[in-house]
């Protein structure tokens, strides 16, 4: 189990690192897909099969494709010149902040008493059915709000991205 976890983690971290460092935007996107895959793998490892499938369906099937279209619509087709941002010498600041954050989180995690906690027994059977039931009972209000949000986002995205009628 540890080996699987480490391998998956390596893939995930590698994908994330490449996604933020590569110069070519399309390569970034492909690295991001690798990262999504890694996360989905972690979900499967954590017995959250449904979430894993949803992760693949939504992130790889939809979000990645959306980003792809955005890249194609805004950049030249080869995707080059998407250089790493050197915000006038401020890039080291971002890296510094991120490193500090990571270090701090590691320290907190180590101090926490949850660190060595081991999982409960696996409960993968019937989870999907349970989720479905919960969605229309306890969580029905969030679900409806989510539906409204998604509709709003859909319409909003269309309105924002719609090309304005050119004045003639």
């Amino acid at each position, binding site marked *: 189990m540890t080996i699987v976890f480490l391998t998956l983690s390596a893939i995930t971290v590698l994908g994330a690192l490449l996604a933020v460092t590569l110069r070519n935007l399309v390569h970034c996107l*492909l690295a991001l897909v690798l990262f999504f895959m890694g996360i989905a793998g972690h979900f499967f490892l954590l017995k959250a*099969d*449904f979430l*894993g499938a949803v992760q*693949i369906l939504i992130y*790889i*099937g939809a979000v990645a494709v959306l980003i792809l279209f955005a890249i194609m619509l805004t950049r030249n087709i080869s995707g080059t010149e998407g250089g790493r941002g050197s915000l006038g010498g401020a890039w080291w600041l971002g890296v510094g902040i991120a490193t500090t954050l990571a270090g701090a989180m590691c320290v907190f995690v180590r101090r926490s008493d949850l660190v060595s906690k081991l999982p409960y027994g696996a409960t*993968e059977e019937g989870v999907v059915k349970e989720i479905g039931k919960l969605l229309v009972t306890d969580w029905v209000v969030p679900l409806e709000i989510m539906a409204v949000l998604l509709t709003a986002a859909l319409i909003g995205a269309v309105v924002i991205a719609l090309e304005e009628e050119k004045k003639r």
Partner: protein
Amino acid sequence: MDAIYKLIQHYAPKIPDLLALALAVLLPIAIVMGVFLTVFALLTWVERKALGRIQNRRGPNRVGPVGLFQPVADGLKLLTKEDIVPAAADKVVHFLAPVLTVVPAFMVLAVVPVAKGFVPVDLNIGVLFALAVSTGSVLALFMAGWASRNKFSLLGAMRSVAQVVSYEVPMVMAAVVILMAAGTLSSVGIVEAQRGLAGWFVFKPWGLVAFVIFQLCAMAEVARTPFDLPEAESEIVAGYHTEYSGFKFALFQMGEYVAAITMGGITVTMFLGGYLGPGSDLPKIGWLVSAGWFFAKLGIIVVINIWARGTWPRVRVDQLLGFAWKLLLPLALVNIVAMAIWHFASNKLVGWGASAVVLAVAIVALVKINTGQTFEKRSYRFIS
């Protein structure tokens, strides 16, 4: 998998545990790969033969009896061909793309119940997994088109991305009905829910509509001919695999055909009762009979695919996307309502009639709405 593991432990207890485990994992994979690669090879031959006959040609008949070894010859030829990579291409992505096309196609096979008691992995989210993984191929196609640095390739890739994303939606919506009826996502569970006389979902009004929608979407998803815009020969050479040759090209073909077969397998599982059929429950030979039923039904789907390919012309891009969003998606949504009516109807007959009426009205209305429009006269940029 577990069953094989137990069998191995039962019959050969001396085998070390790890080896038995590895065998239990690898054996189903080997069987599934072997069987479906043979089916793939046969399918290429059947398709060429049938297309030939449809067009009053003879089809392949040179290699072996009635051209039966044509796939072998094709494979050998493609294996020995030079592998050309364009100078400007993105080498790594160009190399990865064909490999990644094949992977999702085979991954879907993991949840297809081929025979009674034989499914490589009985995931409890089986169908969702299949639908999710089959989306993955779209990125491989995009990688192929983009890495080739060729305008035709890129056009084909973008077409394929738009097409797959559009058809994914009605496809999942059509599948929802089946999940509602079966009450499970597991592929085996869906098959078992179709037991009984005329129990196949395709024999219910909502099931029939969902079947048609799903079948059309599956054809679009794997770019079969009425929807083969990503590789429209007459428009964009060969689409995303214009710049591929040799074995990489073979991998693309393989990915495409295996995807078509697995999609057919999913369709059979969801609508045509999978491996169920007279005799599939017999004690000793049940697995064989059920496998026979499964492949017979798969054959029907394949024949439909080939027939449609030999008959219907390619649609335009606007027709393609409009068809998905304006006709299939609303119809799939209405279909869910029809399913709900069926589910809550007091008796079967009322449910049958009510859902059929709802669907008929919806189909007529949608067709009216969609055929009423006429297109504006096109204006061309360079002609005044």
